[in-house]
């Protein structure tokens, strides 16, 4: 079981250079915290999946479900006139769009309408429309919305096949890169190191996903292709972060060869503590810039990265090094 370190002769204990803390003293706490976070994440993903309105572990956005998203800005003098969602939905229901030969006309009654910025801009989520239909639809809205700023319109149409291809491509490439990284670490260090690096990575990605599952459940936040990109980044960063500490452990194993692994790890983690925190901080600082000033389109991308990198920093300090002696002993 998880036995405490074997008693060490006093003179050597005094020689162990510790500035801040011995991570092994807090390892149970670290494991419990991570286990709770992982459990909550799994619960969030499961609840999302069981939720009939979502029916998948994360709430998929337009990029994965396919469809058309139209954002328009109204041209108003001072304040925009009141505009109710039901008014717009009724208008959408009454529309008839130019047909596409060989296809039935899309059913617009299930469209979602959001009024943003105090009525200034509108966000419509529709079934997939052809380019012509989207333009016609915007024109047909003007009787209800009043004149629109054409230069501020954005239309995104994504076919349903594209999203699943993107998802498949990202998952396959992630798995292959994990395998390659595992081979590299096993070669440079050993199999246990590689296993723990991947465990940390899975931990970081799981918690990031878990947070977004809860956000999807509670706030209706959806994941898009940028979220997939942020997961890839988090995975890459997590490994890099872990490898930096591994590098120091490898060095201490040579310098303090007489000591048990648990002490070598403690020294290595302690010595790298400031730099681990600082490297995470310097990565997080620009992301906070993105969060506060980057505008709405990058907001959730920044959130995902901030969560992932913070968790990644935690797991590379609190998880990988503390599990190393336990697994290496067997």
């Amino acid at each position, binding site marked *: 079981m998880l036995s405490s370190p074997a008693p060490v002769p006093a003179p050597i204990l005094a020689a162990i250079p510790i500035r801040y803390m011995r991570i092994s003293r807090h390892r149970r706490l670290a494991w419990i915290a991570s286990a709770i976070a992982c459990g909550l994440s799994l619960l969030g993903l499961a609840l999302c999946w069981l939720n009939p309105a979502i029916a998948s572990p994360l709430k998929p956005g337009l990029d994965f479900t396919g469809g058309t998203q139209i954002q328009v800005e109204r041209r108003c003098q001072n304040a925009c006139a009141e505009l109710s969602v039901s008014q717009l939905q009724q208008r959408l229901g009454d529309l008839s769009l130019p047909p596409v030969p060989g296809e039935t006309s899309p059913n617009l009654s299930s469209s979602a309408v959001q009024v943003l910025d105090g009525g200034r801009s509108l966000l419509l989520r529709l079934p997939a429309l052809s380019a012509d239909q989207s333009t016609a639809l915007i024109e047909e809205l003007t009787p209800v919305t009043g004149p629109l700023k054409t230069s501020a319109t954005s239309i995104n149409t994504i*076919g349903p096949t594209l999203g699943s291809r993107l998802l498949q491509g990202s998952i396959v490439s992630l798995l292959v890169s994990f395998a390659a990284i595992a081979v590299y670490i096993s070669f440079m260090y050993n199999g246990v190191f590689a296993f723990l690096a991947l465990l940390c990575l899975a931990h970081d990605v799981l918690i990031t996903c878990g947070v977004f599952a809860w956000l999807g459940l509670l706030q209706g936040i959806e994941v898009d292709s940028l979220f997939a990109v942020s997961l890839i980044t988090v995975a890459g960063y997590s490994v890099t972060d872990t490898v930096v500490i591994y590098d120091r452990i490898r060095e201490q194993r040579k310098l303090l060869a007489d000591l048990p692994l648990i002490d070598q790890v403690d020294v290595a983690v302690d010595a790298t503590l400031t*730099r681990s925190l600082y490297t995470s901080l310097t990565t997080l600082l*620009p992301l906070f810039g993105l969060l506060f000033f980057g505008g709405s389109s990058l907001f959730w991308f920044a959130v995902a990265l901030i969560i992932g990198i913070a968790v990644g920093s935690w797991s590379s300090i609190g998880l990988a090094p503390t599990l190393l002696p336990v697994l290496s002993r067997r």
Partner: protein
Amino acid sequence: MARQQGWVAFILVLAIASGVLLATYGLQLGLDLRGGSQLTLQVMPAGAILKVESEQLEAVKEVLERRINGLGVAESTLQTIGTDQLILQLPGEQNPGRAAKVLGSTALLEFKAQKPGTEKEMQGLLQLKRQAEAVLAAKQPKTTSTESGLPPPPPKPQLAPEDLAKSLRALGLSVPEGSSETDQIEVLLAEVNRRVVALYGPTLLSGKDLTSAGRQQNATGNAWDVTLGFNREGGEKFASLTQAIAGTGRLLGIVLDGRSISEASVGAEFKAAGIAGGAASITGNFTADEARDLEVQLRGGSLPLPVKIVEVRTIGPSLGAENIRTSLLAALSGLVLVGVFMVLVYRLPGVVSVLALSLYALYNLAVYSLIPVTLTLPGIAGFILSVGMAVDANVLIFERVKEELRSGNTLIRSIDTGFARAFSSIFDGHITGLISCTALFFLGTGLVKGFAVTLAIGLLLSLFTALTCTRSLLRLLMSYPALRRPTYFLPAAQLPASAA
């Protein structure tokens, strides 16, 4: 010392070259930053072809390029993405509907003769077709027929709802409960078209034999015809085709992408030699735009494989400008934060790292302009992130230098050991990063692939700037005795008594 100056000179030359490169070529901005439309076209396998090969993708691209040129959109670009996708960018285009229509169809033009003994069935079907189209035209004030002002339709009976239901039943069609009249008519028309096409014989002449296409207003002046010119072989085929059906009451069918667009009768006067001269026109009651689009498609040739438009993104120019503004603000604020942090924590080396990071950003942008990498909103986010990660290497080095100083080493020695000892961790970190990038690049699609490229460029450059720029600049500064003070690196309290 001489070697140090050599490096500094090299770094300066690189910086100047990057500046010149950026000033000359500039950065290629994505459509989300400058406004415009982007269409993603998926090439679909068809018939005997189960998987799209690269030659077929190229062949499709060639045809599409000809069509785009025919459209006359300035600055458009068409790129292949992955194994079976093409991305068309139309900067400044706010209404991609026309491009989508022209590019999205195969434009396979076929001439067929009606099979003998089917005249009665054909007549019935065509009558139903005209009725249904008339109803649609009445419902859609914007679409084709009314605008073109058909020669006042010889009493075109409207299709009453009961008749529509009866016709649907007669054709063996069932429509979902509660679907609109328009939908029902669309279903009806699709079935009528299928049956009409089935009444034609084999394809006797196709768009392959075309040498030219044009358009002209028809005799009534209300609608447009598309004119065709055939090569010699095509002309002969057309003559024998028309000769075979002349005066029989059987029709000549012109089928575009499996849709019968024109059914023409050939007068008995062509019984002798058919319609010779290698020219023909399609009277399909086109509007001016429709005629032009068809002309562009026919001139460009038909696509060897069908394409499907899987993604259309349109962004208004002022939204693009807004995106540039916010992302610049985000980038600057983030970088200033990092710079302040580095200077506060690491003092003199912190200043050096800010310089090295500025060089990193400059080189990075220069490489973007050289390759060229199209800068998109997510791309900028990736760039900002990569700067944050590039600092990591500096943090690793400076922390190591601090450790060496604390353990009582001299300044110069600490710097050298710091760089040497930090190297392996920086190197390992960058290698694992590059491994992920390689996998993402070869297996990922679109967005992911672009991200992998920018991240890989960032990693390679940060390896260079951290190990070379930071080091040479720091060494250069250390050649000035006035700067050679440990307290410029570390608070005096942390220094061992002997070194302070």
